[in-house]
C-alpha cells in the first residue's frame, strides 16, 4: 500500500537518512514503553492477568464458530443489524450500500485499523463518499495524505512543526504556529462541526461480547462516541477475532489494554454499545479477510489473540529505528509482520526478517503471543516457499550449501575469519546489510572447531 516497490530495508534506509529524527522517534517510543512498565509494576497481579487474557483468547480461538453465532443471535435480539464479509472488498461494498441506501455521501470515522486494512477510505472516495477521520492522529495523517504509522499513535512519525504546517495549509491557522494546545483546539472546533453535520459514523470494535451481543469501543478523545451518538446510522467494523465470551471478561482486557498501550490505567472512554438509540440504527460488519486462514495455520493462529495495544511496536528496536511506514502494511511492527504474510506471503516476505528476534515483543505482549517465535517460523515458511527477500536469498542459498557440507563449512569459516581480519571492507560495505549500524566483533584466531580439536588433543594427552 505504501511504496510497494520497496522492501522494509530500503524504506528503513530512507527513514534513517535523518538521524536526529530517528533518535527522536526511538526515544519517544521508548518513553511510551517505560510508561507501560510503570503502570504494570503497580499491579502485583499483572502476570496472572496476562495469563487470564491469554487463556480466554485461547478459548475464543477454539470455539470461534460457536461464539460468532451466539454473538449474532444476541446482537440481533438487541435490534442491531449484523453483516458478514469474507474479504475487504465485500466489507467495503457493504459500507457503501448502507450509505447509498440512506442517501448519505459523507461519513465520519473513528479509529479502525480494520478499515485501514480494507483500504476503505480510498474505496469510498472513489465512489463519491467523503470520509473524515476524527481521531486527531488519523486526522493529521489524512491531511498529509498518508497512512497511520502506528496502530495506537497514528502520527508518531510527525514533528509538531510539520503538523503546524499541515494545519496552516488546510485549516488556515497562522503559519509557524505548532503549539500542540492550539492545534488540538483548532481540530476540536473544526471536527465539532463535522460531528454535528454527519448522518453516518463508522467506528472500529475493541471487544464484542458473545454472551450479550454488545461491543466495546475504547478512545481517549471521545471521538467514537461523538460520531456515533450524533449520527442516524452507526456502522461498526470488526474482525472475527474481536469476540470474547462473557461480559465479565471485559474486566481482564480493559485492565490489560491501555496499561500496555500507553501506561494509562484505562482509556478515557470504554463505551459499551448494546442497542441502538431510538430513531437510529447500528450495523455491525463481521469481517474474515484472511483470519480464518490464519486460524488454520497452527504456528501462526496465536496472532489472532492480538488486542492491538501496540506494546510490541513501542518496545521493538527495529520498529523504533525504522518507522511504521517501512513495513508497507496497514499494521506495522512485530505483530504486523506476522499478520501481513498470511494475506500475501510474496508481497510481505521481507517483514518477518525485519526483526532481531530479541524477544522483547513477546515479553510485553498482554495476551502472551509468542511473537518472535512466529517471526522465526515465518522466515522458514517463506524461504521454503521460495519468497525469501533477494539479498537474504543469495546469502541463504550460500548458507544452505555450506551448512550441508562439512568440508565447505570448515573452509568457509576459515575464509570468513581471514576476510574479516585482513579485508574488513569486503564485509563492511553497503552490500552487506548486516554491517549497518553494527560493529563487527574482534575476530577469533581459531574457529571453535580448531579450538576444540586442539584442546581435546591436550585432554587426551593428559589422560
Amino acid at each position, binding site marked *: 500500500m505504501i511504496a510497494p516497490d520497496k522492501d522494509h530495508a530500503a524504506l528503513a534506509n530512507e527513514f534513517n537518512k535523518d538521524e536526529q529524527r530517528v533518535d527522536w522517534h526511538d526515544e519517544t517510543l521508548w518513553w511510551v514503553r517505560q510508561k507501560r512498565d510503570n503502570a504494570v509494576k503497580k499491579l502485583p497481579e499483572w502476570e496472572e492477568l496476562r495469563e487470564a487474557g491469554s487463556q480466554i483468547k485461547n478459548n475464543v480461538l477454539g470455539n470461534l464458530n460457536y461464539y460468532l453465532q451466539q454473538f449474532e443471535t444476541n446482537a440481533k435480539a438487541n435490534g442491531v443489524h449484523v453483516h458478514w464479509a469474507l474479504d475487504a472488498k465485500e466489507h467495503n461494498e457493504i459500507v457503501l450500500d448502507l450509505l447509498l441506501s440512506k442517501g448519505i455521501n459523507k461519513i465520519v470515522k473513528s479509529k479502525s485499523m480494520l478499515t485501514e486494512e480494507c483500504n476503505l477510505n480510498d474505496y469510498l472516495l472513489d465512489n463519491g463518499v467523503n470520509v473524515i477521520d476524527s481521531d486527531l492522529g488519523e486526522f493529521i495523517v489524512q491531511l498529509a495524505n498518508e497512512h497511520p504509522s502506528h496502530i495506537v*499513535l497514528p502520527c508518531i512519525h510527525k514533528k509538531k512543526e510539520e503538523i503546524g504546517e499541515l494545519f496552516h495549509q488546510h485549516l488556515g491557522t497562522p503559519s509557524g504556529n505548532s503549539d500542540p494546545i492550539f492545534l488540538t483546539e483548532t481540530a476540536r472546533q473544526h471536527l465539532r462541526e463535522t460531528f454535528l453535520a454527519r448522518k453516518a459514523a463508522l467506528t472500529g470494535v475493541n471487544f464484542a461480547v458473545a454472551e450479550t451481543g454488545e461491543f466495546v469501543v475504547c478512545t481517549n478523545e471521545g*471521538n467514537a462516541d461523538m460520531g456515533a451518538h450524533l449520527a442516524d446510522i452507526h456502522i461498526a467494523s470488526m474482525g472475527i477475532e474481536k469476540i470474547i465470551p462473557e461480559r465479565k471478561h471485559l*474486566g481482564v482486557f480493559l485492565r490489560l489494554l491501555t496499561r500496555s498501550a500507553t501506561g494509562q490505567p484505562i482509556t478515557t472512554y470504554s463505551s459499551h454499545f448494546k442497542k441502538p438509540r431510538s430513531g437510529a440504527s447500528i450495523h455491525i460488519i463481521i469481517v474474515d479477510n484472511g483470519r480464518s486462514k490464519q486460524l488454520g495455520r497452527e504456528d501462526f493462529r496465536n496472532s489472532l489473540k492480538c488486542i492491538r495495544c501496540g506494546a510490541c511496536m513501542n518496545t521493538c528496536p527495529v520498529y523504533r529505528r525504522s518507522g511504521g511506514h517501512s513495513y508497507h502494511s496497514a499494521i506495522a511492527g512485530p505483530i504486523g509482520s506476522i499478520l501481513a504474510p498470511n494475506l500475501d506471503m510474496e508481497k510481505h516476505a521481507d517483514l518477518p526478517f525485519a526483526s532481531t528476534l530479541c524477544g522483547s515483543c513477546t515479553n510485553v505482549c498482554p495476551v502472551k503471543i509468542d511473537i518472535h517465535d512466529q517471526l522465526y517460523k515465518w522466515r522458514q515458511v517463506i524461504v521454503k516457499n521460495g519468497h525469501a527477500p533477494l539479498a537474504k536469498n543469495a546469502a541463504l542459498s550460500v548458507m544452505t550449501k555450506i551448512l550441508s557440507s562439512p568440508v565447505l563449512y570448515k573452509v568457509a569459516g576459515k575464509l570468513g575469519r581471514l576476510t574479516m581480519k585482513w579485508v574488513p571492507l569486503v564485509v563492511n560495505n553497503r552490500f552487506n546489510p548486516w554491517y549497518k549500524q553494527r560493529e563487527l566483533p574482534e575476530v577469533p584466531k581459531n574457529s571453535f572447531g580448531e579450538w576444540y580439536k586442539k584442546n581435546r588433543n591436550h585432554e587426551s594427552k593428559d589422560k
Partner: protein
Amino acid sequence: MSSRDELLKAVAENQPMNFPLPEIEFLDSECIYLAETFINVLTSIGGAVVLIENLMEIETYILEKFKKSDRIVTTIPAIKWMAELIPATSIPPHALSNVDFAIIDTHCAVAENGAVWVTEKGIVNRALPFICQHLAVVVNARDIVSNMHSAYNLIGTDDYGYGTFISGPSKTADIEQSLVLGAHGPRSMTIFLIM
C-alpha cells in the same frame, strides 16, 4: 452459500481444539483505601475531585465557576433548581450542542483507574457526557469499588442499551506525545464526591 455460512464454515474447519476458560479470581485486591486511591488516580489523569457533604454544595461550585449565561444541565432531579433538568423523553442529541456544564450521577466508580460507570438510564441522552464542554459526576464514596472485576460484578446482567466507563476529561497526545486535555469531549471532569 451466503458469505455468513461460508465464513462460519471456514472458521469451523480451521479452529483448534477447545481450551477451557480460566477462573477469574482478581476480585477485590488489597485496595482498602478506596476513596483515596480513586482520588489519587483520577487527579493524576487530569480529573478534579471536590469533596461535598450534600448536593446543595454543588451550587456554590457552579456560582464560582460559571456565568449566568452558561447553559448548565443535569439529569439529577434533586438538583433541578440549580440546573436545567434534561427530560427523560428523548430529545435530539443536537439540542445539547451548546451545553457548557453537565452534572450526572453514577452508582459505580472504580478506584484502580478513576473511572465512573454510567448507563443510558443515568445520562438520559447518550451524547450528553461527550458533547458538553465540562462534565461533573456525583459519586457516593460508598459506591467506589476496587477494580474492574468488582465493577463488572456489580454491573452483572444489567440490560442497558448503552453504558460507558469515563475516566477523566477527553484528551489526546497525538501531537508529539504532548498531553492536551479537551480533545473532542469535555475539557474537564469534576467528581463531586459525597463522603
